[in-house]
């Protein structure tokens, strides 16, 4: 790190801490490149896809503890200590997540029965399904549209329709039974 750049950071930081927003904006933009470079060196620890998240964590942390910067001391050790800590935090988060989650390969076969293996099967009865849904009573149709097509939660759907969660569950169950019966006939 060139001394001139470090001096610039220090000058801008002092100005920023005294309330100069323009200087602070410039400082953060300049720091982002430095932080990204340092964090990228540890991408094996945090994962390549998390580099930008850690850069943003560091920026937030710099902002949160900017009062701890002593103008009489060099800037870079102060910054790098924060970068190191936030990188380690991200590495730990990744490790914990890795211990909780088990990556699974996509299975070509789901169940032994051949009827159950609809892997990559194209939907071929969309028109019949649309017609069948339209033939449902209004309450059941609304339940299917909100819960199955728009993927709303039961609570959201209940709020949207003014109904209760229990009533929506019953309406969905009845709608699915009716749809199965209608599609079997076709």
């Amino acid at each position: 790190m060139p001394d001139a750049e470090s001096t610039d950071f220090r000058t801008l930081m002092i100005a920023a801490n005294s309330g100069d927003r323009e200087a602070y904006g410039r400082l953060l933009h300049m720091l982002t490149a430095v932080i990204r470079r340092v964090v990228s060196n540890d991408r094996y620890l945090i994962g390549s896809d998390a580099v930008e998240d850690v850069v943003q964590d560091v920026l937030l942390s710099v902002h949160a503890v900017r009062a701890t910067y002593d103008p009489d001391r060099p800037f870079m050790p102060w910054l790098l200590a924060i970068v190191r800590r936030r990188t380690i935090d991200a590495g730990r988060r990744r490790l914990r997540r890795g211990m909780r989650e088990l990556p699974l390969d996509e299975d070509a076969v789901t169940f032994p029965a051949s009827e159950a293996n609809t892997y990559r099967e194209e939907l071929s009865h969309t028109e019949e399904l649309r017609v069948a849904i339209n033939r449902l009573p209004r309450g059941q149709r609304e339940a299917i549209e909100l819960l199955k097509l728009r993927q709303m939660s039961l609570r959201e759907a209940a709020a949207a329709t003014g109904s209760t969660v229990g009533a929506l569950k019953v309406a969905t169950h009845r709608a699915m039974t009716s749809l199965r019966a209608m599609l079997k006939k076709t």
Partner: protein
Amino acid sequence: MKTNELIEILTDDATPARPLRAPWRRTALWFAVSGGYAAALIAIMSHDTTWFTRISLSRFWLEQATALTTGVAAAAAALLSVIPGRSSRWQIAPAIPLALWLAILALGCLRDWDARGAAGLVVGTDWPCTMAMLLGAFVPVAAMMVMVRRGAPLMPSATAAFAGLAGAALSSVVACVSRPAPHATTMTVVVWHLSTLLVLVFTTVLFGRHLLEWPLHPRLTAMLAKSSGSVNGRRQ
């Protein structure tokens, strides 16, 4: 949220930030508050007024001096640990007076054993001493936690441990000076004081580290939430 958008939000939120005072000044402030509290407790809890006669007991006062130094060194270590970019060599500073304190206590045990044989190593019960320590540590630990929360939680567990040690060492002085126990063996002091000290340090680490978070102002949190719906899940 894109990084440039985050920078805009942070820039908008930038108000003048008054730099923290130098760690040694903050240590002095902590000692003034905690020392005043300790002195008040000693004055309230002392059952006799003969404590000053123990001035002649050089070992007793040496023990208190090393405990006090341990407390101050741990307080300085806690306050330095929340300043980014400081050398980590200061972390061993509390270990020196702590080792000296333990050595003096060990020497006391040896003297008791030499003078009274096995009876000199008997461990008596000393619950009042533990209660005095818990009471004596309350304000110093609380004051230290308030002070370190203004800094950067670079290593929350170590900071909390230093804070616990600072309060516990100071409270040990409160317990020893306010509750003279001339008949107690040094082993009793070792077991009860050090056990209470360990409990205090462990409890402070257990609860204190959760209090040490990167201090985002609620106004900024609200601005971030408004901008992206959530502080988490940022992407450029």
